């Protein structure tokens, strides 16, 4: 199991995660080593085994759809890096 630097950068782009060029080789080598060990899992026969997403398989819980708490916008936005008039500011998307 080997991940090239190009593969690594493709995955990083999918994750919207900047990896510096000088670090990409290191991450690619580390991930290759990790995935090589993890490929152990391919050796176990799992034919007809239903995947388990959740250890406690319960049914979803329903509740009345009623307002239970007030949302204080100012308080929620207090931790935001940049807001204006209640809006989150980001770089211009449409020229």
């Amino acid at each position, binding site marked *: 199991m080997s991940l090239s630097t190009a593969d690594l950068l493709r995955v990083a782009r999918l994750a919207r*995660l*900047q990896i510096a060029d000088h670090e990409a080789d290191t991450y690619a080598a580390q991930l290759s080593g990790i995935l090589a060990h993890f490929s152990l899992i391919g050796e176990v026969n799992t034919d007809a085994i239903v995947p388990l997403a959740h250890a406690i398989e319960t049914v979803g819980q329903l509740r009345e759809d009623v307002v239970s708490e007030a949302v204080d916008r100012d308080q929620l936005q207090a931790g935001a890096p940049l807001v204006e008039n209640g809006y989150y500011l*980001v770089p211009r998307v449409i020229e």
Partner: protein
Amino acid sequence: MTHPDYPQTLAAQSVALAEGQFSSVELTQHYLERINRLDGQFNSFITVCPDFAIAQAAEADRRRAAGENGALLGIPYANKDIFCTKGIKTTCASRMLADWQAPYDATVVERLHAAGMVMLGKTNMDEFAMGSSNETSWFGPARNPWDTNRVPGGSSGGSAAAVAARLAPVATGTDTGGSIRQPAALCGVTGLKPTYGRVSRWGMIAFASSLDQGGPMGLTAEDVALMLNAMTGADRRDATSIERAPENFMADLGKPLTGLKVGVPTEFMDAGLSPAIRACVDVTASTLKQLGASIKEVSLPNAGVAVPAYYVVASAEASSNLSRYDGVRFGHRCENPVDLADLYSRSRGEGFGNEVKRRILVGTYVLSAGYYDAWYRKAQQLRRLIQQDYVAAFNDVDVLLGPTTPNTAFALGENIADPLTMYLSDIYTTGVNLAGLPGLSMPGGFVDGLPVGLQLIGNYFDERRVLQVAHQFQQHTDWHSRMPVAAE
């Protein structure tokens, strides 16, 4: 009046507070003074909140004066910095959240504070709970009170170190792949990961949602049981929390172990285990036998793939959960982004440390087109096989006994450059999370001056049994009451 010798356990403090031997304010000041004097060498707290704590303690004293007498009323605790706390910053030990203040309290925090507990501060941890050594913290590593050149374990390393150093009688932790049990083992304290769903995850910053579970850490099983009483219960804000009749986790502590069937998984005792720790497991099995239990070997045939299956599932869930850190709504934002894509990727690249990036990359990879079936789906199939192994074992025995970790605490820096070696230190703990079972680590010996942790694994919702076994063991041993010299 001064009280130079405050009792160390929550249970003893609870009695002393009820008898009026000292007040919660006095007890809280005692711990704040210890933190101030000693924590420079352990770095177990990210934030200490003396004013907040003293105010809570004074309120607890008022409640007691008004007639209340709950077991946790006025007891100080250390809170892992993954639980949201209104008014006190919550960092998850990440640059991403280094200055973040949560707009609300986590359910666990609400419940502990409603019971009258006093929060001394927020403890150090691996960044976003990803790590087994506490070395990935943005705020620097916490150190092991038994040897400050060694790691306290992780991710709840600050909580374990704080309890071991008697900087708090008890602490909160969270356990996704061993993050309560492994640091408890390495620091010589007792920690319990409850059955998945016992403890609400609301306000507990998400790492891997199908595995994350909060739980208590303390010096004894009795203290852990007392704290668990206040932490559990259904919460409509966490749809995976489980509705069950209220239980008193103290109820079975005093019952003898006569007739108890203990299984020792052969796969946990193989060549990967340090011989000295294997000897501690054997001695503990003999002790339990003397206390009336029977011991038999059991098999968990898929234990060998628990670590890779766990890391695939956990990283996949983490890559999804951590997509919320986008530099827009909260957390770190890069300077002068040129466009939205740059804002996202550079804020994340700057805000996350190396281990978190590795997990996001692994998780994104195993979920990406063309790889999903071979990795993520396969790991989920193994998850079922691992669960079935445990279910089969519990048809034969009441509780499982084994090591918590393959080795005692390792040196700072020893494994940090080698992520795979670090992952393999979770070899005995990850399967329990995949299966959703309760697991406890308790002190069970020392090797070269370092504590050894032993793991007890229970059947679903059988925390009472696990706590009973640990408590009975602690009535006949004194490993749990040993104190590191650096904490004196």
